[in-house]
């Protein structure tokens, strides 16, 4: 048993030295425009997802379930500040969002699997080691909920909301 433990401890030390050595020798590719192995990206993605599921309090809820006006207001915020990376509804995906690794998800095209409270949390706190920044210093909680309400319905907006957004966009020209 003693020998087993000694072997185990040696194994742990060798593994950790191996990892640190690999990193410090510069052998880990850091280019954002090269695609990492499918294993690495899948593993990262599910880790982030698991962490967000765990971090967002179960009782977090939008204090005001959005009506059409709130969806339009959230959409306006989205069109001002998020489209640059996450893509605009009805437009081709963002070229700029694709230049990051991990690439910015194209929300307008693909929607999102995250729930409204999870979107609120992500927008507020950001995601470490991605291009997603914490927005708490730019937006009040109330505005973040408007955004979350809009983004969680971004691929299935009621026609009157879409029309309202287009009107607003038209009026700005």
């Amino acid at each position, binding site marked *: *048993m003693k*020998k*087993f*433990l*000694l*072997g*185990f*401890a*040696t*194994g*742990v030390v*060798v*593994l950790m030295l191996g990892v*640190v050595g690999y*990193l*410090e*020798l*510069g*052998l*880990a*590719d*850091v*280019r*954002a*425009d*090269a695609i*990492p192995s499918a294993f690495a990206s899948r*593993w990262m993605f*599910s*880790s*982030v*997802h*698991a*962490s*967000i*599921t*765990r*971090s967002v309090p179960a009782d977090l809820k939008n204090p005001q379930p959005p009506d059409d006006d709130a969806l339009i207001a959230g959409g306006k915020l989205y069109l001002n500040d998020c489209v640059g990376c996450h893509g605009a509804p009805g437009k081709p995906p963002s*070229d*700029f969002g694709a*230049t*990051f*690794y*991990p690439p910015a998800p194209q929300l307008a095209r693909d929607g999102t699997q995250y729930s409204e409270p999870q979107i609120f*949390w992500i927008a507020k*706190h*950001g*995601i*470490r*080691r*991605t*291009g*997603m*920044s*914490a*927005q*708490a*210093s*730019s937006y009040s909680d109330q505005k973040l909920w408007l955004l979350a309400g809009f983004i969680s319905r971004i691929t299935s907006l009621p026609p009157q909301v879409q029309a309202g957004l287009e009107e607003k966009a038209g009026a700005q020209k």
Partner: protein
Amino acid sequence: MKTLLLGFVAAFVVLPLAVLGYFRLGLAGVQSDATPPAWESQLMRSAVHASIRRSAAAIQAPPADNVEDAMVQGGKLYLNGCAGCHGEPGKPGEDLDHYPRVPQLPQSGTQYSEPELYWIVKHGIRHTAMSADGPFYSEKQLWAIANFLRRINNLPPGVLDRIQAKQSPGGSNN
């Protein structure tokens, strides 16, 4: 001896599984407005440095016709495309919203060489907010940006004025 080896092999199975489990259970924090432990950021920072040093080792800066003109061209490109995150010369900036934090270059300067800066702008840095901007610039422009960045906190006199000078309404002044 056999037991020793068995223990050694067991470590190679248990440790990766433990790491995988730790992440899969969502125990690794992901919010970018919190600060991870110092050992983690130090390890990651030096891994990035080492990787960039290795990747850019064979690249050499092409000779510029006029270094100061290139610096001015790079500075103008910087104000348009980079200053939004990396800070404007002469204005104090701080980033607390991304992790890793975006370096505020006009204050901090950079320890990277010109070829390394060229490489970073072109390819971006994975798992940071640094995008790969190669598709948006010509090679000459990338080198001009690198040239400017190398000296961003130590510009020759007069260069910043030329960079910040508004172009005349008729277009260029050359």
